[in-house]
């Protein structure tokens, strides 16, 4: 299985609680939050965890996305994703 980038779209109106709850579900399943928007969150997670996130009552759709390097703000999004990812990664030293 592979880690991929997904957008997790919310059901109905945006609320902080709903967004936080969905993000917790993604985190619990070993995923990472790359960006949060009002209609959904962009996450990186393993393929096998998609059904578990999809089953969340506040989620309407989970779909794979890719970053088009020729996009208008692709480089900036890439930086945002990398920055947010780095805050969630734990580096173990032994």
């Amino acid at each position, binding site marked *: 299985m592979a880690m*991929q980038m997904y*957008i997790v*779209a919310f059901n109905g109106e945006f609320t902080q609680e709903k967004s936080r709850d969905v993000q917790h579900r993604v985190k619990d399943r070993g995923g990472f939050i790359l*960006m949060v*928007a*009002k*209609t*959904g969150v*962009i996450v990186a997670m393993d393929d096998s965890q998609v059904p578990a996130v999809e089953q969340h009552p506040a989620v309407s*759709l989970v*779909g*794979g*996305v*890719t*970053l*088009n*390097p*020729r*996009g*208008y*703000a*692709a480089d*900036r*999004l890439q930086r945002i994703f990398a920055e947010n990812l780095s805050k969630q990664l734990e580096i173990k030293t032994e």
Partner: protein
Amino acid sequence: MPNVGAELASVPFGKMIYDMASAIARSQIALDKASISLVKVLAKTTFDYVPDVVETLTPNPRQVKNANGTPMVDGDGNPVMITGVLVTTDVGKSFPLTLLQAGVNPTFYQFTNSTIEVKMAITSTQESQNTLDVGVSVTASADFLFASGSVTSHVNFTSSNKYSYSVTGSSSMSTTLVPVPPPKNMMPRFFLVNAMDPKAISISQS
């Protein structure tokens, strides 16, 4: 005797291929629909995009102060100056940008390399055993006037046949799903009108 050809002919290859192709077609449609829904989500998801941040450095010479706060001068009475710098920041006006415009594309998937594998094992064993037991006994007696004799014989024939025939089969179907770039017809076209120089407006499509 088992007829291997007949057994193989009984495998419904045509139906299996049709069922698999039909399932793939249905799955492909469902995947495409999901990806198209994703295009809508991405087109609706906006964020405030700050196009530029300008930082301007300008000289800001300052006179060094003594410990008591008074301006410091050297032995000739000249003020002791340092070259300071003043940084002013001008953040460009933000505007909403959709994730689709920004460069987040939905992933489309395509089925490739579909394989149907049928394995069949036909086992046939035949075992026959025949036993033949032949026995002859002769008895004879003789008297003064009579003589008698008897001959007895027996034949035991046993025949046993064992016949077994078994056919076992298994089939497996596999297909590969790969991500592909979004089809052009399913993605909106982006036009960039560059009007930075009103005398040379250019339009480009991406």
